[in-house]
């Protein structure tokens, strides 16, 4: 059932997002053209500047709109009128939420790809990428195994933190729909509450970790902290960054299962 749900979530989101992606890449090409003209005829410089601004806005817009569409799809498909169909499909609530999360994550990767392609279309010249790859290779060679691992860790954490933001919105919407009226407004109110509680929980966990390992803070204040102290810091932040989205997910599924309130 997950595959089938994904198919329709993906199609519905693509309908909203593909036009923007195509436009962004097209603007990259268009901006390259206006730059070419501006180099030949100086009066094109103003137009070139304006197109560049629009292109940059589109690049950021790709990420922002992808996030907005992800949340919109969840809200419209689960809480608004379409929810009457979604919630009467013979599918588990966890599968429905998994499908929303996975399709949103796929579109995050697509939007990153689109931005890279648009940038390349805008500025690519033959041989341009070699220095980039070279410096990347040098970095990996110098950083060694641990450096590469650190890079991988940072990338995974960025992905988890994006998923965590999505899940925080999902949970806020699930909490908001439990109210009998003004569900949208309540979702925002609960969003603020969930955010605040998450901050408090993170702080408590972090302070707790410091309390348990008192030497750790002194060690971090040194110019070159010990590897142990750094590992401890990574460990604690990783746990906090993983605990929160898991809690958002579990609570969202529970609410959809036991407290659904479509009226």
């Amino acid at each position, binding site marked *: 059932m997950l595959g089938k749900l994904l198919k329709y979530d993906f199609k519905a989101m693509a309908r909203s997002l593909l036009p923007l992606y195509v436009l962004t890449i097209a603007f990259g090409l268009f901006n390259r053209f206006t730059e070419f003209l501006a180099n030949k005829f100086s009066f094109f410089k103003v137009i070139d500047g304006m197109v560049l601004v629009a292109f940059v806005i589109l690049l950021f817009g790709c990420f922002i709109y992808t996030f907005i569409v992800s949340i919109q799809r969840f809200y419209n498909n689960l809480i608004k*009128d379409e929810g009457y169909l979604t*919630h009467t499909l013979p599918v588990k609530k966890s599968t429905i939420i998994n499908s929303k999360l996975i399709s949103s994550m796929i579109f995050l990767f697509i939007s990153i790809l689109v931005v890279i392609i648009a940038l390349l279309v805008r500025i690519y010249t033959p041989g341009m990428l070699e220095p980039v790859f070279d410096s990347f290779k040098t970095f990996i060679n110098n950083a060694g195994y641990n450096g590469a691992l650190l890079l991988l860790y940072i990338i995974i954490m960025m992905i988890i933190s994006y998923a965590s933001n999505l899940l925080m919105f999902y949970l806020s919407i699930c909490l908001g729909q439990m109210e009998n009226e003004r569900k949208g407004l309540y979702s925002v109110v609960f969003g603020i509450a969930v955010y605040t509680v998450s901050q408090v929980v993170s702080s408590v966990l972090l302070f707790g970790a410091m309390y348990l390992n008192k030497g750790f803070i002194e060690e971090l204040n040194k110019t070159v902290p010990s590897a142990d102290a750094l590992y401890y810091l990574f460990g604690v932040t990783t746990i906090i960054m993983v605990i929160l989205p898991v809690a958002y997910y579990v609570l969202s599924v529970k609410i959809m299962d036991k407290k659904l*309130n479509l009226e």
Partner: protein
Amino acid sequence: MSIVKCKDLCKDYGAKKVLKNVNLDLEKGRIIGLLGPNGSGKTTLIKLINDLLVPTSGEVLVDGKKPGVETKKIISYLPERTYLNFNMKVTELISFFKDFYEDFDDKKANKLLKELNINPADKLRTMSKGMKEKVQLVLVMSRKAKLYILDEPIGGVDPATRDYIIKTIMNNFNEDASIIISTHLISDVEKILDDVIFINDGEIMFVKNADELRHEKHASVDEIFREEFKC
């Protein structure tokens, strides 16, 4: 085993009691009219059966099971609103239903669409409200479900189409299936009802065999309804 059973079912919205201690035991293989004025709790009861709401207290059983994945396989539900994605074409909706409901018969759906002059290649967005309702009804009636729950199925369409829809409902369900129809337009559906449930202010007034009721009161169900709920 009964197809729908409610035990001391209550539903509150905040301080407002929408359903008060509803007890029902509906037999299989009947066409049941759920009749009551606006705000009497018809739609709330239907949503509880469909797992779209959770009871405040009491319980609902569908074919002996609590509402969930298993009951959704056997219920074909037509809500009182349009629940389809307007960006989808009718053909896409047919594939959607076929993907999720094992009992969906796409041949039957295409046949019904043809009879209603609906072009399957059309997007829902381009259709009138009545047309959207027809598409929805076709999708719901093209399942071989054990229980059909139709909330106001004829509210938004003209009288000629109403007759067609009622005919469609009658011709498209098998003997041991059950139908619950909620409506205000009693005279239009009266002739197909086996049983009627009268509901008012969140309470079941009575559940009766339609023929017996007519015989007892020497009036049509429509007339009885008008009399009972006179303003």
